[in-house]
Structures are given as structure tokens and as C-alpha cells.
């Protein structure tokens, strides 16, 4: 069957084939069975419900318990191809690209012994796409093209779309789309917020809040031979230094989010061949969001000045030595065919090649707006890498055009509370996506997006974005993307992109069968991971 008829996958393929590089040789050994994998996780999930949460701190410990409908190819996660997990074959779209019919595997069992059918898959996607009142779903916006999802029988699942869309299949492959048991959901839609029961490669054993999540091998797993591990232990460790030390002292094999270059160098120096490093560009970027309802940030000149003051090109060189950020880019994952080229970027305010000219313009704008000695508070997340590091760097950059900034750092909860309630002046937040799919990834910049905190207005953005999503012509998509980007970053100065992240994973060399991807959400079900000791 033809995997490549959806343009975005083709684009993703083109992009990703170049981007990631792994310093480890791709191992050709046959996997060994057994062993417990221990790894550290930098945070803890607020609830256990994948459908509602956005954090990797849920994916890393809990993804191995669940099956999904489709996923990125686990053997080749950077190829941009999608393969079946619970379905038997990737479907051919029918009805002019508006109907997708999936056949569901037979004989799959939930960990409680009940059988998994298309009805369970249907119930799960109903909950994700059309959440009942009182249920929070984080991914409603990704499925705006879906008209209905039905399961005519136990083996068939049908998605009907309102219009053909290249964003549909990547949205399905989002790793948060856990398949839940219909029986459990029928009894209580909130059951999965506090409980785990899936059909994935590992069976939930124990969660000790604040400490760890343990899983054991699912002997009835439907992918033959897998998983290889007897079990795993995801240890919650909130300080970065301690996580790196744990890897160094072999209390953990790795950490799956990403560590700064310095930590990598220390580990390699201390462990030599016992440590393996894999690196990749990262589909994550820090977004600077001024609150358009807070004076003087209602004035686009002031907002533009914020961006003009940042020397991104030099910042990239400097910060990539101490932090997990690296590439300069616009709103699209750098290196992707839809991303702006360097020449195109240099036309946008804040990306000008001459920083002195840029800073002079920033000062001029501030003066013109009547705030030559602007003072404000930057609301930031209390996560050092890369939030407070980049925040501290920006404050120094702003100081050079006469802006005085105080940094206010908050724990995740209060931080999002401030953003959502509009109780901030300028916030530093992020856009992190799993499957590289710029058409969907840039929806964050729409005024109606759930995670758009700047309180912006702009119907033109919605129109542009929808036009981009409905066209199949790549050149047209690219043209619209440039317009969309220029509007957001420059003309309307709504939100600003700072620097894109760079993912470095250092793992104990005995851990095999894991490949880095541009997202710390992807390919984390551990079914192919094994230990070679």
C-alpha cells in the first residue's frame, strides 16, 4: 500500500531524513529477553489521563501501558511513515479522501482480560474528538476535520471527515491517543484520570506518588516476541543534576527528555564506552507571549521592540553551549520544507542580520510608543532547562535596549493558571509537538487555539491557517505559511519564537533498541527496548 499519498508525511519524510543523527551504530544484534529498565523522569503527571494531559511526564511513565490505533514506525521513527498498532493495515482513504476505514486486530486483550474491539477504539476517539461535558480533551483542535467516528462492527472503525486533510493521519498518530476500555468509560468517564488499564506491552504494577511508576511485561502482548524487558521502573526525579548523576552512577539507564551539552560531556568523560549519545533537532520551541490586554503591550510597536532586541543568531551560538536550545527558526520546525529559509527569516523583525540596526529600531519604537524605559515582569516556568536559562539571557538582551525586566518564576500549575487567566505581562511558554506536522503544529498561533494565551485578535490568521490546511499544493502551503508567519512574528507581533530546542539523550550503552526522534513524546512504549548486560 502506498504510504506516501499524504503530502505532510512526504514532507516530514524529506525533513526528517536529514535532521536526526545518532552517534551510536545501529545495532544489528538480536534482542535479548529480560531485565528491568530503570530511567528517570523529570516531572510527574497531574492526572493519569493521556487524553487530557499535554506533558511528557505522562507519556514517559504511562505510554508503555497503552495501545494506540496507529503510530510512527517504531523501527524507523524518523522516516515519517505511520504504521498500525491496533489496526491490521493502514487504510486507503475513500470518498475523495473523506472516509478512512480501519480494521482492528482480533484477539487483543486488555490487561484485565477483557477483549479489545473496535467499540473500545471508537469510545476512546469519541472521548478525544467529541469529549462529553465535564471531560477535558487536549486534542479536540487537531481533529476539527473529523465529522464522525463509528464502529459498525467489532472489527471495523470508520472515520468520516468534513473535508480531506493531510493533517488527519498525523493527528491520529499522536502518542497521547491511548485506547481505553469502553466498559470503564461507560461506568465513569473520569476513571482513567486516576487509574491505569490498557492493552499495551506492559502491565501497570504500582504508582507511588512522588516516587515512581512500575510496570511488568505483558505476556499476552499482540506484537509477537515483544516486549523484551521483564519490566521497567520510571523514577520521578525533579532536579536535573540528580538525574544526570543517577545515570552516571547507574541508578538509571537514561532520561528520555533531553540533557544539556555539558551534562552529555560530563557523562561521556566519566563513562566512556558505557554511555551512548543520540542527538536530534527537537520539535519544541520557546514562545514569548506578550499579553495584548496588558498595557503597554496592547501597542504592537512595543511588542515588536521586544523581539527586535533579541540577537537570536548570536544567542543560538552562545546558548547552545549551556542549554538545550540551538536552532534559529520561525514558527515551523527548522529544516522542514515548510520552514522559512535563512534569507526569508532575515526579512522578519527580530531576525535581521544586523543586530545593531535591530536594537536601534527597538529603541526607536519604544520611544515612539512613549515607553523608552519600559519595565515589566516576565512570567516564566520554574524549569531551568531551557526556560529560566533563556529567560535570563533575554533579560540581558532587553537590558541592552534599556528595558528592565524582572523574572517571575512559577511552578507549572500556578504558571498555567496565570497564563490562562491573563494575569501576566509577558510570558515565556512553549510549543512542543509530537509528530512533526507543521500544518497542525502552528495552530497554536491562532487566536482561537486552546493554548493561545496572548489574548490576540485576528480573523485573518484563522482564514490563512484554514486555507493552508485545505490545500494539497505544497507551494501554496508554503506561500500561505510565509504570510501567516510574517503576520504573527512581525506585522501583528502577536507571539514570538525564541530558539528551537536540541535534543541530546545519553543512555547507558546496555540499553538497546531505542531510537531518538525529534519529539520526546514519540516512540516511548518501550516495546522494542532491551537490555544487553
Amino acid at each position: 500500500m502506498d504510504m506516501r499519498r499524504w503530502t505532510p508525511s512526504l514532507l516530514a519524510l524529506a525533513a526528517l531524513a536529514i535532521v536526526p543523527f545518532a552517534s551510536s551504530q545501529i545495532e544489528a544484534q538480536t534482542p535479548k529477553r529480560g531485565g528491568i529498565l530503570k530511567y528517570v523522569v523529570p516531572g510527574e503527571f497531574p492526572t493519569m489521563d493521556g487524553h487530557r494531559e499535554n506533558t511528557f511526564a505522562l507519556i514517559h511513565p504511562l505510554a508503555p501501558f497503552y495501545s494506540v490505533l496507529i503510530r510512527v514506525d517504531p523501527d524507523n521513527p524518523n522516516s515519517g511513515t505511520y504504521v498500525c498498532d491496533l489496526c491490521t493495515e493502514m487504510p486507503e482513504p475513500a470518498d475523495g479522501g473523506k472516509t478512512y476505514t480501519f480494521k482492528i486486530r482480533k484477539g487483543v486483550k486488555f490487561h484485565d482480560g477483557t477483549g479489545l474491539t473496535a467499540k473500545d477504539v471508537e469510545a476512546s476517539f469519541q472521548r478525544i474528538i467529541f469529549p462529553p461535558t465535564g471531560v477535558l480533551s487536549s486534542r479536540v483542535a487537531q481533529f476539527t476535520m473529523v465529522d464522525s467516528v463509528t464502529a459498525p462492527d467489532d472489527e471495523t472503525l470508520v472515520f468520516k471527515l468534513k473535508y480531506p486533510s493531510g493533517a488527519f493521519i498525523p493527528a491520529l498518530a499522536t502518542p497521547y491517543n491511548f485506547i481505553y476500555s469502553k466498559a470503564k468509560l461507560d461506568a465513569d468517564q473520569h476513571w482513567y484520570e486516576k487509574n491505569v488499564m490498557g492493552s499495551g506491552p506492559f502491565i501497570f504494577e504500582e504508582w507511588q506518588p512522588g516516587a515512581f511508576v512500575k510496570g511488568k511485561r505483558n505476556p499476552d502482548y499482540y506484537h509477537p516476541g515483544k516486549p523484551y524487558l521483564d519490566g521497567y521502573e520510571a523514577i520521578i526525579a525533579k532536579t536535573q543534576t540528580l538525574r544526570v548523576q543517577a545515570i552516571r552512577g547507574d541508578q538509571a539507564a537514561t532520561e528520555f527528555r533531553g540533557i544539556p551539552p555539558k551534562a552529555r560531556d560530563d557523562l561521556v568523560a566519566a563513562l566512556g564506552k558505557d554511555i551512548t549519545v543520540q542527538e536530534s533537532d527537537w520539535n519544541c520551541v520557546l514562545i514569548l507571549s506578550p499579553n495584548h490586554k496588558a498595557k503597554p503591550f496592547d501597542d504592537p510597536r512595543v511588542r515588536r521592540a521586544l523581539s527586535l532586541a533579541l540577537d537570536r543568531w548570536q544567542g543560538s551560538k552562545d546558548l547552545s553551549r549551556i542549554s538545550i536550545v540551538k536552532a534559529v527558526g520561525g514558527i515551523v520546525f527548522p529544516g522542514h520544507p515548510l520552514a522559512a529559509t535563512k534569507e526569508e527569516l532575515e526579512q522578519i523583525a527580530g531576525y535581521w542580520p544586523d543586530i545593531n540596526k535591530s536594537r536601534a529600531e527597538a529603541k526607536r519604537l519604544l520611544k515612539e510608543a512613549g515607553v523608552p524605559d519600559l519595565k515589566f515582569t516576565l512570567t516564566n516556568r520554574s524549569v531551568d532547562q531551557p526556560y529560566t536559562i533563556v529567560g535570563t539571557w533575554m533579560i540581558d538582551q532587553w537590558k541592552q535596549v534599556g528595558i528592565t525586566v524582572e523574572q517571575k518564576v512559577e511552578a507549572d500549575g500556578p504558571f498555567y493558571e496565570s497564563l490562562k487567566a491573563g494575569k501576566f505581562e509577558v510570558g515565556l511558554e512553549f510549543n512542543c509537538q509530537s509528530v512533526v506536522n507543521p500544518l497542525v503544529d502552528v495552530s497554536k498561533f491562532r487566536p482561537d487555539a486552546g493554548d493561545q494565551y496572548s489574548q490576540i485578535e485576528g480573523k485573518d490568521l484563522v482564514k490563512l491557517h484554514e486555507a493552508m490546511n485545505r490545500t494539497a499544493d505544497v507551494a501554496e502551503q508554503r506561500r500561505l505559511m510565509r504570510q501567516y508567519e510574517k503576520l504573527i512574528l512581525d506585522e501583528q507581533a502577536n507571539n514570538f519564537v525564541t530558539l528551537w530546542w536540541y535534543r541530546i539523550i545519553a543512555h547507558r550503552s546496555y540499553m538497546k533498541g531505542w531510537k531518538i526522534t525529534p519529539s520526546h513524546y514519540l516512540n516511548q512504549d518501550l516495546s522494542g527496548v532491551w537490555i544487553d548486560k
Partner: protein
Amino acid sequence: MATPMATVTRPAASAAEEAPPRPSWLGALWQFCRQNPLGAVGGIVVIIMIGMAAFADVVTFYDPTRNNFGAMLEPPSTDYWLGTDQFGRDLYSRIVHGARTALLVGFVSAFVGGTVGLILGVASAHFGGRLDLILLGIMDVLMAFPLIILALAMVSIFGTGRFNVIMAITIPFIPRCARVVRSSALAVREMPYIDAARACGFSHARIVMRHMVPNVFAPYLVVTTAAVGQAILLEASLSFLGLGVQEPVPAWGLMLRGGAQDFAESAPWVAVFPGIAISLAVFGFNLFGDALRDWLDPKMKI
């Protein structure tokens, strides 16, 4: 620090052996140093810290917040006496300016907390009765919380940042001082001169301010000095946890957070010097406070 010392009368001056007559406060100082060599060391540290904080702009050569990636993680040298951090900021400048943050938080919260405690303690002792009972009850409740826990709760209410941290540290100190002052004030209350003052028909305010407060000044001073050291440490702890002062403000606890730990091995100066600064400051204030207590009020137990 020298001024309040002079206002306090020493109990039982035992040292007549000092030969050359000096101005009285110099003599007292000499006495203090001789009897408490450790206290003298503490006093010197305290004076150095205050000097650093007061003249931070004069004695440093770099802007403590200015990034300079060209000089990132430089080891100590003649250009950068204590090296630079991961942003290329001069550690010496940051530590000296950090003294300002530390002492500001330390002194303000200790003295404000101490003074409110002084007023409450004296008032509680003077008026007695129900007021005393209620105040004592509240103080007991507050004292049952570990210091850091109370400070953390306060930070949650007020938020982070320099001013809020001062508030968060001040409040837990109030009961600690009030308790000590109250017990001294209870003894003072029974003194004949207070009775005399009362008999003269002096107002409550006059009795409290003119007669009681000066006589409980010794324990007040001792508790407060000890509190400065504690407050510095508490601020450092809060900042280390990310709940206190925030980047890029130079503050010692903050300097030990994140980067400093990551670089502790390959660039040890980043982690060593701020730690030494905190330890030295707290050490100094504690030694000084201990000596002050021995000297002013050897029987006092805090």
C-alpha cells in the same frame, strides 16, 4: 553594630584588670574581643559582609548581570578573581552584589520580625491577662511549625521575588522573638521601678516605651542577631528551591541552583564560591550572635 552595644549596660563588670584607661566603648570592645575570640572573628566577618554590601558598586569591576559568553566559565584569574559562570558573568561581582541581597533580606526580616516581636512580647507581658493568653497561644501555634515550612507557606501566598521573600521570612521570626522578649519582660514587670512608674500615674505607652523596652533590649538584640544568620540561610534555601529571589538578581542561593550544580565538577568555582559565601556569612553572624549572648546575658537560653 557598635552603636547598640554601647547602649547596653554590661552585667557585673568583672574586669578591672585592664590597665590603660580608654574611652569606655573601646574598652568594652577590647573586653569583648579578649573574652570571645570566636565572637571577634564573627564580628570581623559581619563587618566585611556589611562593607561588601554597602560598597558593592565600588569594589567590583563588572555588571553582575551582564552576560558575556566570550568569557564563559573562565577559571579564577586576575581579570576574574573568582572566575565566571555559564553566562560569562563575573562571580566576584555577583558574590559581592549577592551580599547586598543576602544582608538586605537578612537584616530587614530579622529586625522587622524582631521589632514586631519586641512590641508584642512587651505588650503581652505588660498587659497580661487575656491578651497575654491569646498572644501566647498564637505564638505557640506559630512556633510549632518548622521555620522553612512557614516560610514556604508565606511564599505561596505572597509569591516569589525579593520583597515577598522578606515578608515570608519576617513573619515566622515574630513569634520567636516575642517569646524570648516576653519572658524577660515578665521579670522586668516585677521590678520596683515599674511599680514606681505606675504609682506616678504614667501612661501605658510611657511605661512600656521608656521603662520596659530598654530593659529587655539585651535579649531582643541577641535573638535578632541570631535571626540575621538564619534569615540569610533561609533566603538562600528558598532561592535554591526556585521560590525566592529570581535570576538575574545576584543571590547566593540562586547561584547554587541549576547551572552551578551541572558545572560543579568541571568548573568547581561556580559551585564552591557562592557556597562559601553563604557559609561564611551565616558562620559569622552565628559566632557573633553567640558571643553577644554570652556577653550580654549568659543565662539566656535560645
